């Protein structure tokens, strides 16, 4: 039975004209309400056998949440910016190649025009979100807003806390520092495009003129339930010349720290097994070879 055939309308859908109105309304609704950005995760709740909320606050028309500001030190991305808009904005910024690829190659064109970066970060049970590892490797900060003000925290902290925020707290902004590092995003979907990646490697490396690694941030998505940094691999690469084959060999030695998640698409071990290959591809892409 579909929702439309269940009789009289019971829920509400409030299209917030401003951030203040959205925060007030979310606060008033309490646990019965939730923010609604692109909706590509929420609308599939029935398929996951999860109940929909009684009240939704649409945040996609709030001007400050749909803006991308490209500054000299950082870029600021409103939480309701779509993947398509983000991809277009990053076209001429090679240091954000990892984020442009994450936003521009996920799902399919119509979904990229709906799905938002804030939704991607906030969907705590969506393991295959492309933007999450990309933002992890970019040393991102995020802003969480409520009636009481704004709080800026690291993305690592946000990911740990995201399922515990109070109903009136909302992710409103993503702040990504400009580092000039070489970055790349490597993903393995089962088909060439259009479905969820089996595994994701997002990489940001600072290299000297001889390509010796000074600093590395590498994040892995879709392998485990939540994306996370691969700190042992980062440490192992520092001081070495960045080389795709070498990076893959080191990754193969260290990959046993991951425990793949089971799913109908692939067995758990496969997600881990493909990581060295994805590290090789990401490294080569970062080097432009």
């Amino acid at each position, binding site marked *: 039975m579909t929702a*439309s055939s269940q009789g009289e*309308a019971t829920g509400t859908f409030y299209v917030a004209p401003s951030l203040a109105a959205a925060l007030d309304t979310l606060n008033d609704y309490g646990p019965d309400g939730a923010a609604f950005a692109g*909706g590509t995760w929420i*609308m*599939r709740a029935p398929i996951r056998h999860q109940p929909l909320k009684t009240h*939704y606050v*649409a945040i996609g028309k709030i001007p400050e949440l749909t803006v991308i500001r490209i500054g000299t030190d950082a870029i600021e991305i409103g939480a309701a910016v779509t993947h398509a808009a983000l991809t277009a904005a990053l076209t001429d910024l090679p240091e954000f190649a990892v984020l442009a690829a994450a936003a521009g190659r996920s799902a399919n064109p119509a979904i990229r025009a709906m799905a938002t970066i804030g939704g991607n970060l906030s969907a705590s049970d969506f393991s295959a979100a492309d933007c999450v590892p990309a933002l992890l490797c970019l040393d991102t900060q995020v802003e969480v807003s409520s009636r009481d003000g704004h709080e800026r925290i690291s993305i690592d902290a946000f990911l740990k806390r995201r399922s515990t925020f109070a109903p009136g707290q909302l992710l409103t902004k993503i702040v990504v520092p400009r580092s000039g590092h070489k970055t790349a995003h490597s993903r393995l979907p089962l088909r060439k*495009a*259009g479905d969820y990646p089996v595994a994701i490697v997002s990489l940001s490396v600072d290299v000297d003129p001889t390509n010796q690694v000074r600093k590395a941030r590498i994040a892995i998505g879709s392998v485990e339930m939540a994306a996370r940094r691969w700190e042992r691999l980062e440490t192992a690469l520092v001081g070495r010349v960045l080389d795709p084959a070498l990076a893959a060999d080191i990754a193969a030695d260290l990959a046993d720290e991951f425990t793949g998640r089971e799913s109908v698409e692939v067995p758990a071990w496969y997600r881990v097994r493909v990581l060295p290959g994805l590290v090789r591809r990401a490294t080569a892409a970062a080097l432009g070879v």
Partner: protein
Amino acid sequence: MSLSLTVNGKRRTSAADPVTPLVDVLREEFHLTGAKPVCREGFCGACMVLLDDKPTPSCLMPASLAQGCEIRTVEGLGAGDTLNTIQQALEACDAVQCGMCFPGMVVTLTHFLTTSPRATRDDIRAALTGNICRCTGYERIVDAALTALAKE
């Protein structure tokens, strides 16, 4: 409170719950059955409609958020009894098979032809990433899109 929707140029009202997927309102209340609720996940594209001229999977669009938008379904793409350019090309190329994916294909390609007049075969394939044909009849569909582009 009822929903007010503009579908294929006509004002329609619905008493559906605001979060009801648009595809269900289109099919069950307005009897516009071209859009198909197949995967209900935004993967297959069988429910694609144009929302303010943008291809949108109507399974993921709450009906209430479509208020104020111009909704066009496959039933509203032609002019009267005349098929639009891509519909004519699909027929000429004998590209139609079971019909399940086709309304979505037509919607996506109608938009694509207007926005990408110099598209290549690869561009067309990329544009159809979100439209799955279970008959695997992709090559003739892409041929038809190229034929339509050549005519425009």
